[in-house]
């Protein structure tokens, strides 16, 4: 293939007088476009977050926050197999496992997810053989302290839902489960660890700073 000659024919040069008026008309046409939008308020496309907070819906596949769905009994499907941990490109997931006291099988203790470094690449969700993880669209995650971005996703430490379903005695089931909500151990943070971190699966209201209705309305002096 050789260098092609351009296909477009060269336009005739325009004389200075005609060029002048052509220029003026081009300016006026441009002004017409903007004026058209100015006089048509229906062309305003703004969606007013946070006023429309009730109606605002994220797409189903939105990847904004990782969660571990719990079924109606409050059981998750995570078995603590570390596959997602390996798949995670930057180790935003740390799976801390433990041995079950009775069955001696491996089970999840803490599923620590670091939102501060997560890249939302969805690889952990894709590779999970038990579909224990899910991305969802809760986008209101801002915090004042970076350490509050470290979440503990499982609400209990213990066997996964299928294993629990096999246990028929409710008391026995309870004995297998330890409540987990807040993680306050050492957190890997850029290679250094900082104590005193309260990560939150379900944060207490006082912990996570929520913007309330009043804040949204704003106040005048």
């Amino acid at each position, binding site marked *: 293939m050789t260098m092609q000659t351009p296909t477009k024919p060269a336009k005739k040069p325009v004389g200075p007088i005609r060029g002048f008026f052509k220029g003026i008309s081009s*300016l006026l046409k441009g002004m017409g476009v*903007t004026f058209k*939008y*100015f006089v048509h*308020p229906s062309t*305003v*496309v*703004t969606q*007013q977050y946070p006023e429309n907070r009730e109606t605002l819906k994220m797409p189903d596949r939105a990847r904004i926050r990782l969660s571990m769905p719990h079924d109606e009994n409050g059981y998750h499907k995570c078995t603590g197999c570390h596959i997602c941990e390996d798949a995670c490109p930057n180790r935003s997931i740390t799976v801390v496992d433990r041995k079950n006291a009775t069955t001696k099988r491996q089970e999840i203790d803490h599923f620590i997810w670091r939102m501060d470094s997560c890249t939302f690449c969805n690889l952990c969700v894709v590779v999970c053989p038990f579909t224990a993880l899910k991305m969802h669209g809760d986008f209101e995650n801002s915090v004042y302290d970076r350490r509050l971005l470290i979440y503990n996703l499982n609400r209990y430490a213990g066997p996964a839902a299928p294993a629990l379903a096999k246990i028929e005695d409710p008391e026995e089931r309870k004995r297998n489960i330890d409540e987990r909500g807040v993680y306050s151990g050492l957190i890997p943070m850029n290679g250094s660890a900082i104590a005193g971190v309260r990560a939150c699966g379900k944060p207490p209201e006082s912990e996570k700073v929520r913007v309330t209705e009043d804040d949204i309305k704003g106040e*005048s002096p």
Partner: protein
Amino acid sequence: MNETTVWQVKTIAQRAQEALPDSVWLSAGYIALGLVGAGAFVALLGMVLIYAERKIAAHFQCRMGPMRVGWHGILQSIADTLKLLLKEDIVPENADKLLHLIAPFLCLLGALLTIAVLPMSPTLQVADVNIGVLYISAVSGLGVLGLLVAGWSSNNKWSLIGAMRAGAQIVSYELSATLALLVVVLLSGTLQLSKIVESQAQGWWIWRAHGVGIVSFIIFLIASVAEINRTPFDIAEGESELTAGFHTEYSGMRFAFFFLAEFINMFIVSAVCSTLFLGGWMPFHIGNLAGFNGIMDLIPPGLWFAGKTSFIIFLIMWFRWTFPRLRVDQLMKLEWKLLLPIGFVNLFAAAVIVLYNLYFFPK
């Protein structure tokens, strides 16, 4: 046919003068009213114009503009002003401190002084100088001094480039603007602004005088948009080129003054434009239609002035939100090769019209 209302022109300065023999305090009160009024007017006007600019820009661009501070963001400018006034005022270490401090005031001073002579209505004018047009061209030059001083004293290369651009640009365009003003001076035969307004009782200068008026109106509009550094001629602060131009190093209150001066200048050129070409506070009259003229007279002259000025302000904003910016050499070319020659020819034509009395309407 001369049944039109005789407008009683009375400026605040005149009132003060009249009151002087009776009571010194009343006279002083008038002067104080004039000064405080002008100051408050400028501050308020600046806020209103900034709010208007943001809202109008938003609607040109299919969006809403400020919405969350008060009803439809009506208090937005107040919040901005308060914040800017309370912000830290930084003077760079290597700046020329004195000049850096006074530059914004110089800029604002030029704007404030012009406000004083604008005839906003027959009864609302601070001082009616008999060389009003000359005064306006002289005082508006103060602003450019402010820009030059700001750019020079900041000790920043971008600021300096911006200031030099502003200097070159404003000095050039002042010529065209003055030529356009001279046309009106020729036609009306006076330099006094209130007299110029009164001379348009039979029709505004933009219509009369066989097209000379409209040409000088366009020249004046272009030149004044260039003088106040607005798109498409905002090369002095052109964000994408010079970061923030001459006021790169300014923060807080002093930056707010530049901001304010820009908008007040916009008001001033619009007001001057409407005074000289669109009849100022003079209602819209058509020759002998007494009934129509009577209806027009019912609208108070202050509203006429405000309406005309707002229209030109809107026009200038419309330019800004449509056009890209010109390059500095193109800007100069436009002035020296196009506007200035046309201005001279136009002035000559106006002289011919005045000499041979070629008006649409007899004087």
